[in-house]
């Protein structure tokens, strides 16, 4: 149990990369990239977890209650929102590629020239 999250992280990474490599559609590749990014969220939250501890919000529990690490949660939460905007930028590039070349197949996009 103490290493199961890390195996799951490695599995998600591998599956996402497999989806990217064997993809025939640019938007499918972008979604597989989202899956790969989600593996890093699970990883850093798994690193910061303390067994038997609660969430680090001391609004109604005493201040010295053992809580999980708040720093990795801060990193993860800004990460999630920012990656959505970067995904939107990738989608804009995919739309432009579709307009220029008429296709979204990465195998065909490689052979066309501007």
């Amino acid at each position, binding site marked *: *149990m*103490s*290493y*199961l*999250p*890390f*195996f799951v*992280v*490695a599995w998600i*990474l*591998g599956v996402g*990369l*497999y989806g990217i*490599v*064997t993809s025939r559609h640019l938007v499918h590749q972008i979604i597989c990239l989202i899956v790969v990014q989600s593996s890093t969220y699970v*990883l850093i939250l*798994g*690193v*910061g*977890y*303390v*067994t038997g501890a609660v*969430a*680090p*919000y*001391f*609004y109604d529990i005493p*201040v*010295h209650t053992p*809580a*999980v*690490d*708040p*720093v*990795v*949660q*801060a*990193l993860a*939460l*800004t*990460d*999630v*929102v*920012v990656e*959505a*905007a*970067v995904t*939107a*930028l990738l*989608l*804009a*590039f995919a*739309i*432009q590629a579709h*307009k220029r070349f008429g296709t979204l197949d990465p195998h065909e996009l490689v052979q066309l020239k501007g």
Partner: protein
Amino acid sequence: MTPALRRGMFLVGIAGFLAFYLWGLTRLPGFGRYPGPYGFVVNRIAVGQTNATGVVSAVNFEYRGFDTVGEEFILFAAATGVATVLRRLRDEQEGGRSRAAFGESPSGTTDAIRLASLVFVGPVALFGWFLASHAQTSPSGGFQGGVVLATAFVLIYLAGQFLAFRRVSPADLIDSVGAVGAAGFAAIGLTAVVLGFAYLYNFLPLGTVPGAVSSSGTIALISFFVGIEVAAAFILIVGELVEQTLLVRAEGGDK
């Protein structure tokens, strides 16, 4: 290179990579056995130092505030990039066609969807505002609140009222609101420098009760600016993508 050969090469490569990855990960202390002192130290002193009971937001906007400035500007740059790419694409294609030619509701939106979307616009906007303004008390903050606030605007579009969506969020206003949000965050840090402290030092009064809405100094203010910036960025992105889909409809295509 055939697809089967590519897949075989990938499987060999990923097996080697994941072997090294797992070898490194299993040398960590294990899940649940967090050893490092930094998390425990922050948990112990954050409420006393900043009067903010939401320690994650205190870390985000005060202890690691400089990282958050960087992340927010990544968001801002990505939204600006989307606007640049898609607006140029639209100008190449429209060539001065009037936008009033686009009808109000896309065909196929049933009354149930319209009613449900319109009913939820108000509560969702209120909820987004609640999240963005309560960063220091409970699990909330500028980033989540901003996205929920943008979703409220998108619900107007989903209800079939594209013209109302455009009127409520004109492109110029959204651009300026996003810029104000991003600049506001940087300006708070600079104000601290002007007053003689370090960049992003918490110089506002900290309040008396830990966890009240008016406590924790600059954390609440920064969370507000981040909220409006994230909301403006997402409304901008969705607005540009929606205009692209309307181009498809105006070309004589289906819905």
